[in-house]
């Protein structure tokens, strides 16, 4: 692989932008390793429980049913309408809150491995992404069960979930990476992120529907990027196409994230090792 030799031999003469690019490229190239590490990590987490990773689906399922019944009686809505809505929203919300929350402690947690074994920072974000997707797929199967149980018809639209998931991960990847870098430097960032997501759950239509807000407060939904990201998974599961606006906002989040990430990597990549 001539590129590897070029990379190493020109380490001190290469521009920071080239090094940033190589970091991301090498991360993607070692896909076999982060896929393996991601899978092992989920497996070990649930190794001692009787039902293994199925526990993920089980706990989410209980949560969704409990919240679903309470919310449908509070809002006087039919549970067959609200529970599939909550199930599809909750699994997507869990995907990106878990990914972004874990991202904020990622480099601190893997400091020794970064220093001594593998120094491509993108590798760790990709490993975390694998882990989040595996957990999401367990939740996805549960959500599928819930929506079938509550009489939502199965349609071909559901297959759109997979390109949607790809787009969402491409949008979240740079933001997770950015958070990992910034949290290594600013140690009060991880609790701040956790607090933002706790509040975010209530201002994002996960457990309620946008039409319940009324036209006066609809901007809470319209300007909320989380809502648009959730809609990419939720709409196909409920038998609809996602809106063009949802796709456009997610693309915007992705492009903004990658641009910011490359700026941050170019200026700060060399210093991350001193921060952890």
């Amino acid at each position, binding site marked *: *692989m001539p590129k*590897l*030799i070029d990379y*190493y*031999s020109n*380490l*001190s*003469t290469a521009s920071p932008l080239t090094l940033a690019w190589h970091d991301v490229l090498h991360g993607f190239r*070692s896909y*076999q*390793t982060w896929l*393996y*590490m991601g899978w*092992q*990590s989920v497996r*070990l987490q649930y*190794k001692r429980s009787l039902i293994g990773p199925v526990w993920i689906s089980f706990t989410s399922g209980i949560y969704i049913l409990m919240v679903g019944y309470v919310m449908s009686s509070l809002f006087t809505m039919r549970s067959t309408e609200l529970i599939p809505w909550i199930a599809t929203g909750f699994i997507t919300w869990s995907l990106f809150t878990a990914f972004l929350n874990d991202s904020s402690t990622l480099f601190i*947690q*893997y*400091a*020794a*491995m*970064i*220093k*001594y*074994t*593998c*120094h491509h920072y993108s590798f760790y974000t990709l490993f975390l992404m694998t882990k989040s997707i595996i957990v999401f797929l367990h939740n996805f199967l549960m959500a599928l069960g819930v929506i079938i149980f509550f009489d939502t018809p199965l349609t071909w639209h559901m297959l759109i979930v997979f390109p949607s998931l790809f787009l969402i991960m491409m949008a979240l990847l740079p933001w997770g990476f950015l958070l990992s870098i910034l949290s290594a*430097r*600013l*140690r*009060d*960032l991880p609790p*701040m992120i956790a607090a933002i997501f706790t509040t975010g759950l209530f201002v994002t239509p996960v457990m309620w529907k946008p039409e319940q807000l009324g036209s006066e407060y609809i901007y809470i939904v319209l300007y909320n990027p989380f809502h648009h990201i959730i809609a990419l998974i939720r709409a196909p599961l409920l038998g609809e196409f996602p809106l063009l606006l949802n796709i456009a906002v997610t693309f915007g989040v992705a492009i903004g994230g990658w641009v910011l990430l490359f700026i941050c990597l170019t200026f700060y990549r*060399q*210093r991350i*090792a*001193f*921060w952890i």
Partner: protein
Amino acid sequence: MSSVARITLHNVHLSYPIYSPSNRLLRNRLLSFLLPFRKHLDPAMKPIQALRGIDLMLYAGNDYALIGKNGAGKSTLLNILNGVYQPSAGTIQRCFQHCTLLTPHSSINRGLSGLELILLYGMLLGETHTTMKHKIDEIALFAELSDSIHRPLHTFSTGMITRLLFTISISLQQDILLIDEALGSGDLAFMHKAKQRLRALAAQVMVISTHDLDVAHQLCNRGIWLEDGTVIAQGDINEVLKAYTKKYNHRMPALQSEDE
């Protein structure tokens, strides 16, 4: 011996930035921006000069011993060679593909079994899953862990984990092997075997940072003596050890082997 230098360091300086706890908070950064008349951030601390003007050329086929007191810059130099730290000034030329830094510290998940560690660590060092699968028996045998390889790592002693990581590193095609005090935690019989294996790896550069002058003398043919971030002496191991032992009144390891 190849005449091509695998690593060339020219006038390399490295200063560690030091961050005080209050400067590591976003809250204080925001406050100092919003309320500039109040003091929220500590004045910037002076960075530590860990390395000053290092000139080194490491050639293939040589084994280098890094000696010096605690805080002399040995581990920092290993981190520079490994590529995780970038020099603050000076240039570094690296001509190789695979490099491993072996230390007793590691953030590896202790729930993994020994077998899974072999697969994962090998893959982290750039090997494929299939290649590592074929090497499992050989590695377990050399590390003398054939019986316990299926057990989780939290049942292993520190010495056993070090032995396993060390064996994985030397079983792979590595151009540069950097060892930071790692041999210390293996038992004597294993150390002897590891030394034999290390001696056989002539095609690569090995750099061992150690306080054990016997290890340095037995394993390496070149010595680098660091003190306060500068190279005091480098060259033939006997010459460097002679100068080092003279200064600190240590026993010269060569004398011991002659006695034997």
